[in-house]
């Protein structure tokens, strides 16, 4: 059990990295606190797995330090770090039975056989593997194999942390939800630091208390699912989290407001003061589809827009509209009436965010 701290960590697969683009992980400082349930969320190829392998010690970082409880562990092997890791694709020891597979990490530690048996039975019960215990691992189905793989990670309760690398990729959807719940229970029961890598925001937010969003080799935001939703600190977070993602539109400063096309939007309180300092940067305005206010009646401050498309997704509706040549999306609740052809929209100022070169501009309220 440990707090994991990444200190100025960077990694490049190239031996002679020239520029930032040669780095899979760009210089990062980050702390995973002891006992937390974390998700590492990001698109394929953003460096998630690289980061995980560096934490577990399978990969040695080119720069910086990995610290467990303040102690640098760069030179320690995965065995010495005492960490468990579950991989994307199931790894089982074909010639062993399920029981022996689960017992393998414990026996390698030299635990007495009575303890091994009770631990294996316990974890088999949690993962519902009891009927398979005597079966040879090679004869299992893919999701059974993955459960065994996970079981080997969970069976040791003295580990510093358990790392999951998209462990539910090969699992049936209905089982996924169940297994995520199991992991959560195990986390609550044993209070082990868990880091769960995924590219699925739903998976991340149901498993983790805090999510680290990774993009281009960096953690661009670390926060609760709510924080990621309400105040994305990077345009990528706005775009990646949420369904559909945040509306983002390029804007130009115009006095104490911003403008795109002929539309002039006053900036929320305090933000206008930051505009002069942002000269020369790419400015974008962002608003979540959930926060766009849509009505079919004109009202004060509402802008007339052209309705392009409405999609009914069962529990909610997605309205696509055009404002000054730019397409926006708004999320309407099931009960709300869908305007035809013309609508009036407003962007509530507390949910309208300004980004300069992709980073959130914090207002000085």
């Amino acid at each position: 059990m440990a707090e994991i701290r990444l200190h100025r960590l960077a990694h490049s697969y190239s031996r002679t990295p020239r520029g930032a683009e040669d780095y899979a992980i760009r210089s990062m400082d980050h702390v995973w606190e002891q006992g937390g349930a974390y998700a590492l969320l990001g698109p394929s190829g953003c460096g998630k797995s690289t980061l995980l392998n560096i934490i577990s010690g399978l990969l040695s970082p080119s720069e910086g330090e990995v610290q467990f409880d303040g102690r640098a562990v760069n030179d320690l092997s995965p065995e010495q770090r005492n960490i468990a890791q579950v991989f994307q694709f199931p790894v089982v020891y074909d010639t062993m039975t399920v029981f022996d597979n689960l017992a393998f990490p414990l026996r390698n530690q030299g635990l007495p056989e009575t303890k091994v048996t009770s631990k294996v039975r316990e974890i088999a019960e949690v993962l519902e593997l009891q009927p398979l215990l005597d079966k040879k691992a090679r004869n299992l189905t893919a999701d059974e194999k993955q459960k065994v793989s996970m079981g080997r990670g969970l069976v040791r309760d003295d580990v510093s942390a358990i790392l999951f690398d998209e462990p539910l990729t090969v699992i049936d959807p209905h089982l996924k939800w169940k297994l995520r719940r199991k992991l959560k229970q195990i986390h609550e029961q044993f209070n082990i630091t868990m880091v769960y890598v995924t590219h699925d925001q739903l998976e991340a937010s149901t498993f983790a208390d805090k999510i680290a969003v990774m993009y281009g080799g960096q953690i661009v935001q670390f926060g609760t699912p709510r924080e990621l939703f309400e105040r994305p600190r990077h345009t990528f977070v706005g775009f990646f989290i949420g369904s559909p993602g945040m509306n983002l539109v390029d804007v130009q400063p115009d006095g104490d407001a911003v403008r795109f096309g002929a539309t002039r939007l006053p900036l929320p309180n305090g933000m206008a003061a930051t505009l002069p300092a942002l000269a020369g940067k790419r400015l974008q305005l962002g608003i979540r589809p959930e926060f766009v206010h849509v009505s079919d009646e004109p009202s004060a401050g509402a802008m007339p827009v052209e309705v392009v498309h409405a999609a009914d997704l069962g529990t909610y509706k997605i309205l696509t509209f055009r404002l000054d040549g730019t397409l926006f999306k708004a999320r309407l609740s099931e009960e709300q009436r869908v305007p035809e052809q013309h609508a009036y929209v407003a962007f509530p100022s507390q949910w309208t965010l300004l980004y300069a070169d992709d980073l959130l501009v914090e207002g000085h309220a």
Partner: protein
Amino acid sequence: MKVQNNHAWWLVLPVFALVAFSAILPMMTVVNYSVQDIFDPTTRFFVGTDWYEKVLTDPRLHDSLLRQFIFSACVLAIEIPLGIAVALSMPTKGRWASLCLIVLAIPLLIPWNVVGTIWQIFGRGDIGLLGWALNALGFSYNYAADTLDAWVTVLVMDVWHWTSLVALLCYSGLRAIPDVYYQAARIDRASSWAVFRHIQLPKLKSVLLIAVMLRFMDSFMIYTEPFVLTGGGPGNATTFLSQTLTKMAVGQFDLGPAAAFSLIYFLIILLVSWLFYTAMTHGDQNR
């Protein structure tokens, strides 16, 4: 409506013709010889199973069959573990890996009779490096006179010639194991023996099956190398089955018994190969 007919069978014809010429026809001539006593092109008698009975009770065949089994068993017992060990200790990438592969491939490229000649000279006490050196070190070594020396020399020669094949097969098998297995094993704190026992060996099973079958069949049919090296001697100490057969067929021109012998020889190889195959693939079915 679909027309149902058997025209597709014509497509099998080329393969059938090929197999007929490569296997069935030659084998049938052998079967033909094995059931007749032929004196000259016009005089022949049908003898039924006489030749088979004669050959099966021939002590010469018993002796060389026993020698043959011992030889093949030794070859497998040495070359398979040694080949695995070589493959395991080879570098996995870079210039050294390529170099190792080339070095390993060299013995495989040398013709059998050249291998025999190389070792024949290499082992000689007067001008051969090995023979001379052993004698100079005080060991009395003479493969032409001493049975044990002859045996060891033939075995070492075969190991030198063919271990590479096993090593190359295992090397390719090892490279096919995804990294994640090794990673998982490190996370599980597996010892290197456990990695070998539970990851590498099971994953090598299919290439090992090929290696065992090839080495068994080849060693069971060995002819040229001992023939060049020892000529089957001293006495009959290194006379293996194929040499006994050749003596019978070409030396004494006993075509009938030789044909019967050939068929028995063929059946033994088929049977033992089948046994190996069944034994090594059987484990997959249980539970």
